[in-house]
């Protein structure tokens, strides 16, 4: 299985790179900053790169680490899924070499870092609203209804608000069990920010890394929430697509800005990304994006590293690792239910690798 897929993935990557280079050359005749993947010398790299942070992209990083280990034998990359909040703290404290985060560093916290740092967008993915309700195979939820469920004002599955979104579906009177994250999390941040943006009247709580959900069972990590949903009839929770698919959960279709109910898919995420505005530091928000096919709870995720690294060997290893994530990694992403970056954004990210000094 694995051995047969890898050459294929490599082939796709090479073709993709050729495509990018050709497009860049054809378009402006200028030199592309993107380094061709084929010439990247992973084999000469060495060192250990400890990373920690978001659990949202954990599956993607784990797969990328496994792939990177195959080409860069001298480098050991670790990733500990401790939540975006802790990941940023670890990097600021210097106990890790790279952080995975779904949320940006707050201005107030920037001073705690040991120096200037860079955001590298890596992949994006829909955050599913997964549910477990026996007898109900499809479910539509508008942003307002979703906000009411998570704010605790809708507590039973046969509530009129849910029924209004699902004409023709028989809903049981089962009590709703809301499943949320116990740890500080970028997934929570993105999900609550979506609710605050799309249903400001119905959502009565304060959005952020942690939210004071009024009545909810909590668990660690996306996988923990998925575990509650999977085993509890009547439950609903927010889980990234990758973990939700791997756990065999059922997803609600969410009402987007155009009033359409959309299932969480990679295509829906790509549609949302297509309309997002990219900031100068390569950050962006694809939440509540417009577009008929756009899945409204689509979140990006970033790797943060320091731009100045004391050890040249370590700096080379970090550059190699990020390059791998942005090139070959992008072809692995759909395998674990993550949407690769749009080409334009990816090229900008690859170009930014050169800013890592050391």
């Amino acid at each position, binding site marked *: 299985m694995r051995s047969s897929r890898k050459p294929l993935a490599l082939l796709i990557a090479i073709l993709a790179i050729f495509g990018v280079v050709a497009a860049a050359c054809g378009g402006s005749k200028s030199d592309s900053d993107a380094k061709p993947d084929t010439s990247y010398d992973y084999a000469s790299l060495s060192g250990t790169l400890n990373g920690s942070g978001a659990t949202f992209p954990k599956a993607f990083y784990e797969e990328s680490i496994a792939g990177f280990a195959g080409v860069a034998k001298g480098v050991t990359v670790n990733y500990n899924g401790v939540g975006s909040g802790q990941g940023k703290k670890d990097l600021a404290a210097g106990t890790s070499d790279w952080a995975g985060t779904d949320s940006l560093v707050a201005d107030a916290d920037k001073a705690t870092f040991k120096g200037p740092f860079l955001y590298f967008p890596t992949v994006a993915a829909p955050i599913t609203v997964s549910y477990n309700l026996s007898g109900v195979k499809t479910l539509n939820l508008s942003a307002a209804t979703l906000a009411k469920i998570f704010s605790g004002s809708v507590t039973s599955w046969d509530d009129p608000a849910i029924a209004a979104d699902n004409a023709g579906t028989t809903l049981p009177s089962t009590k709703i069990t809301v499943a949320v994250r116990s740890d*500080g999390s970028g997934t929570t941040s993105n999900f609550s920010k979506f609710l605050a943006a799309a249903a400001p009247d119905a959502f009565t709580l304060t959005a952020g890394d942690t939210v004071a959900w009024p009545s909810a069972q909590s668990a660690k990590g996306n996988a923990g929430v998925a575990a509650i949903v999977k085993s509890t009839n009547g439950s609903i929770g927010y889980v990234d697509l990758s973990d939700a698919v791997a756990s065999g959960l059922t997803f609600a279709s969410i009402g987007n800005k155009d009033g359409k109910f959309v299932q969480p898919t990679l295509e829906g995420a790509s549609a949302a990304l297509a309309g997002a505005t990219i900031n100068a530091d390569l950050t962006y928000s694809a939440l509540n994006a417009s577009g008929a096919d756009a899945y409204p709870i689509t979140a990006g995720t970033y790797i943060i590293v320091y731009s100045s690294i004391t050890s040249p060997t370590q700096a080379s290893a970090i550059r190699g690792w990020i390059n791998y994530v942005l090139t070959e990694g992008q072809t692995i992403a759909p395998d674990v239910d993550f949407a690769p970056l749009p080409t334009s954004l990816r090229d900008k990210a690859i170009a930014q690798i050169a800013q890592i000094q050391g």
Partner: protein
Amino acid sequence: MAIDQKDMAVTPGDRSGGDAASLLVASSGRRTDRLFRSVALVAGLLVLAILGLIAASTTHEAWPAFRSEGLSFVTSSTWIPAEGKFGALAFIYGTVLSSLLALVLAVPVSLGIALYANEAAPSRIRRPIIYVMDLLAAIPSVVYGLWGFIVLAPFLGPHVYAPINDAVGGWPVIGWFLNGSSGRSFMTAGIILAIMITPIITSLSREVIATVPRAQREAAYGMGATRWEMIRLAVLPWGRGGIVGAIMLGLGRAMGETIAVALVIGSQAGQITTHLFEAGDSMAAVIVNQFGEASGTHRAALVGLGVVLFLVTIIVNVSARSVVARFDRRAQGF
């Protein structure tokens, strides 16, 4: 090992002693004796030192939370780390409720087993019972937690709690308690804890029951008592103090249990409810679930929960041991 080496090191010196040196040898022997005694004493004092250090170091670490929260640390049930609010009352409630549930379930079973094993079972059955209790006690709590999380809780929610809730959840009094339908709940935590403390209460009760003087039993039987009457008249009154002690030790163990409870109690903050089939949280479970991501005052508050837990279990254990000790003295004096 360490002792053997010391022994060997001194032996040559001992042997070399001729008559002239005998005085010297004797005094060096006494010195070794004193040294040995001191080393042993230090090892014994380590117990007191560790207990003192636990209290001091955890309180010190938790101080920022205690200072910012004050008394509301134990009187408020608002626990919102993001807003810096740390009221642990709901967790204290969860610890107490799940442990009491465990006692309600475990005490009759434990006493039944202890009485059966000591008073009624033929010897061919007695030994297997003791083995079963040993094995129950030996299974690590995380394994009970795993089973509770994957097997027991998903079964109990829809197949036991929900039907009970539908049947009697609306009734007065009973409905206050038998309410809710969450597989991971106070009740499930109580059940798992009951399984875990049953062997403890059983073996301690058996020790107590075994000290009942034979003469008392025979006197009861001699008056024509049935076995149950003998137990009630001769065994239980005699062992009451010790059995109470055993139950309290079981309570202490249940309150401190962490991993199994963390997996099955449901991790719902702020829950102070009489509804036994609803999710809640306990002090130990909150500590282990939130510690990894916590920092600053949040982390201090979690250590603070540990301090409260330490105090509570110390109080329970000291009272239990005092009861048992009083009983022991009586048993030995007889």
